[in-house]
């Protein structure tokens, strides 16, 4: 499943969807809003926007790249748009494979590719304005 959503991501449900009798390993990556409070002032939340439907299609393409490169039984990538508060999930990747090596490698590959090719942007929103990241 490759999706761009506006609301909270149900990570447990995505992992449950990946559980299959022919796979022994599920590697999951969840990206969450991180706030660096060391400097005093801090980010209040992140806000994401996407160029759709290109972004949706790029997520599915990453899934196809993974399927061509590794022995996987299930891949899902869900990215959230809009406001994402500290600690909340902005992206979730779930890969099931017969063996753990491909599951780990493919989930890592997915997040690196998302950060390279998927037309999604985030801005850090502060109490007095915002800053685009990237």
């Amino acid at each position: 499943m490759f999706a761009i959503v506006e609301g909270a991501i149900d990570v447990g449900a995505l992992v449950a969807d990946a559980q299959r009798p022919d796979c022994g390993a599920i590697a999951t990556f969840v990206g969450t809003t991180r706030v660096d409070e060391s400097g005093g002032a801090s980010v209040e939340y992140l806000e994401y926007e996407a160029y759709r439907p290109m972004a949706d299609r790029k997520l599915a393409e990453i899934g196809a790249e993974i399927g061509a490169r590794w022995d996987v039984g299930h891949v899902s990538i869900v990215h959230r748009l809009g406001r994402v508060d500290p600690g909340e999930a902005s992206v979730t990747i779930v890969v099931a494979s017969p063996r753990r090596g491909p599951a780990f490698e493919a989930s890592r590959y997915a997040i690196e590719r998302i950060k390279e090719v998927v037309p999604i942007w985030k801005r850090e929103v502060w109490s007095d304005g915002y800053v685009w990241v990237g």
Partner: protein
Amino acid sequence: MIKVLFFGAAADRAGTRETELDVRDGATLAEVWTLIVERHADLAPMGDTLAFAVNGEYARGEDTVSPGDEVAVLPPVSGG
């Protein structure tokens, strides 16, 4: 006419998220960019960092556009 979309910091600098541009059939993306900067001068400093898409797929400066195409101006992506 082509449609031009701006995202992220590029939308802020353009002062809009969407505009239309009259370009000759077969114009290159590089020529389109020149027209965009004429109308939205604040975008000029971003030029080297930007990517472009035509009809939802990445394209390069030498690629051409046709009337009705959708060109997207894409700052460095920062999803994840």
